[in-house]
């Protein structure tokens, strides 16, 4: 029962973030980048729901656009990790032998290579930006997908229907697409939800370091960085984006846990 509650809560939070992100594409209370010297650091309430920042920009509008950046960051990073990691894992799991060894060594190496360092380097070459940062995080997350999907593939390969498919002289690609992928999908989805929250945390951290989303586009991490100097005088400016990051990650984690319990009922109640 508890896992159900977890799943529902997670779904609700994630749906809220998605909804806010979607709405921000067509409407925000104010232009999120509009500077208004007459309204610097306005408090919450009044004309500006959550107040304004040091440049007089509407915090609520910026938070909304920040949600969109967050979703975008997660989708890009997880997309890259999925597209790179799952084929690696499936191939390694299906073929075995030296190819499998090479793939797994490469992924071990990537695991040891600090993701943040990769992001710093890519930012130096291509300039900082949400996309650059997320490509780095995507590459760094790929080995996780490779490992999970290899393990799942190994298990699937022992199933009878694979033997049947082989006897029917199906090609390897066909077996991978028709039999392996559908049967490892659930585990990959769980991994995706975990990676999604990792990616969001990474985007926030990189933007905080000034290596992620470029100004004036509001990213929650950048909003945190911009407001840190004002922690002594206007602490609420750090509160809102902080809350947004934490709530979103919490939602994704709950969703991931709920899904995992569904996929792997043996674990119910344990996690």
């Amino acid at each position, binding site marked *: 029962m508890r896992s159900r509650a977890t799943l529902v809560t997670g779904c609700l939070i994630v749906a809220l973030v998605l909804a806010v992100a979607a709405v921000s594409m067509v409407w925000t209370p104010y232009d999120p*980048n509009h*500077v208004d*010297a007459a309204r*610097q650091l306005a408090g919450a309430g009044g004309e500006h729901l959550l107040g304004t920042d040091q*440049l*007089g920009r509407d915090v609520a509008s910026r938070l909304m656009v920040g949600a969109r950046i967050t979703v975008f960051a997660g989708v890009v990073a997880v997309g890259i990790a999925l597209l790179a990691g799952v084929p690696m894992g499936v191939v390694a799991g299906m073929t075995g032998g030296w190819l499998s060894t090479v793939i797994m060594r490469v992924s071990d190496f990537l695991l040891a290579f600090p993701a943040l360092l990769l992001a710093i380097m890519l930012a130096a070459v291509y*300039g900082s930006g949400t996309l650059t940062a997320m490509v780095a995080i995507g590459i760094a997350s790929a080995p996780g997908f490779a490992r999970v999907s290899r393990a799942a593939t190994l298990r699937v390969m022992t199933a009878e229907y694979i033997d049947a498919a082989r006897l029917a002289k199906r090609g390897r690609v066909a077996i991978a697409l028709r039999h392996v992928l559908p049967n490892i999908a659930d585990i990959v989805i769980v991994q995706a939800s975990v990676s999604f929250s990792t990616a969001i945390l990474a985007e926030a951290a990189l933007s905080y370091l000034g290596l992620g989303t470029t100004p*004036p586009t509001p990213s929650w991490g950048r909003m945190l960085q911009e407001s840190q100097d004002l922690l*002594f005088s206007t602490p609420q400016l750090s509160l809102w984006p902080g809350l947004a990051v934490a709530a979103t990650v919490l939602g994704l984690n709950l969703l991931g846990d709920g899904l995992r319990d569904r996929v792997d009922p043996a674990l119910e109640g344990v996690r």
Partner: protein
Amino acid sequence: MPPRRIPALTLSAALVTVTLAGCGSGADRHSTDALTVGLVAEPATLDFSTTDGAAIPQALLGNVYEGLVRIDQQGRIQPGLAKSYDRSADGRTYTFHLRNNVKFTNGKAFTADDAVFSINRVRTVWKLKIAQQMDDVRSATKVDADTVKVTLKRPSNNWLYSMTTRIGAMYSRDGVSDLKEHPVGTGPFEVESWQRGDSLVLKRNTGYWGARPALDTVTLKYFKDSGALNNAMLAGDINVLGAVQAPETLSLFKDKSRFQVIDGSSTSEVVLSMNNSRKPFQDKRVRQAVRYAIDHEALLKTTRAGRGTLIGSQESPSDPWYAGASNRYPYDPAKAKRLLKEAGAEGTSIRMRIPNLPYAVSAAQVVQDQLAQVGLKVRIEPLEFPARWLSEVFDKADYDMSIIAHAEPRDQWIFADPHYYFRYDNPAYARLLQKADAGSPQEASADYRRALKLLSQDAAADWLYLVPNLMVADKSLRGLPVNQVGEGLEFAGVRWSGK
């Protein structure tokens, strides 16, 4: 926390040694012979003849090194190691009469030979572009032990001015073997110790020729970030916060019983550069439109809490020819739109490639929004500073717009060089500067004024503001330089009150 200063009576030599030993854990609050100054940018080496960066002359010029002439708080040239100088009628020859009681900290006397050596050294050893200012020198010769004659290829006021900057620093012929670590000069202080990444300790030069400095030691403590700097000031670990990074944080130092805020002018112009060689900024009207479109007062208020001076050309209040508000453009978005329409540049996309420094990032966001109001689409690209910005914007001029502070004093020449990253190519401006340089000092001011007016009318760039020289200091400190006029942060005149 109340100030914990013990009355001056209890001072003794013993306390001074305590200060020296305890410099790492902060200034000794009980000593009025010692001073600890918190700064952010630290010197990479101690040799400004081979390494660039404002931090080296900031620490050493006027403290460890001195020139034949120096600049005063009003921007006037005053005698330094030369007790006087004569300028020939044609402006080509300067004769410096040296003080004869000056010694280097390596014990050697300062003579005409050292002066000639130092001037020639700039032309042979220095690697930096500023050394080119010495190219005007035809010869530097010793007349007698106390007299040096410098002959220029052409008359130059700038040359005399440049002798007040780091390139005019006087070196001992026997003291240049290890300048990166051990500078040898004639100044009121000498380097006692240097702990990279932490602090530079200066101690009083006991053999100094001039008035005895009130301070025995000055510790320059380098912080990585303004937050730590503020904390150190609040905690009393430092006596002077040498550069307030974010003026909003001044509210931390409201306590008048402990702190004084020093708000003077600097020579650091924050320039919104426009690539004059590229569309759309080849067109003067577009550049002017940008200047009309920016609400400079709002920008200063939002990004600098209103601290700083609004300027309209490459000038500072400490320049003798400073024209005040007359070079500024009023905020007039309607006029900006009209100009853009005339030039057919409405809706143009612009790449603003800025260094990833906080002041540039916050100013860029305001500029971006204000230009959006008149129909220019600006995309901000923060580039790593220094490496990438220097390489792409400064060296290759691969940019449409940028923002950076030009900190060097009297750097009007940067707009006279068509290869400089502004790519501003106006022979009339260059000619005016040349004329100002060659004329008598009286004519020079009028010519400079004309040149800077032309620069402003041409909208070679936009000047966002002049960085304030903002410092926070312990209430009982006296004699800190209010305006930053030259390259050095000088401590010779600083003292604790009550002593």
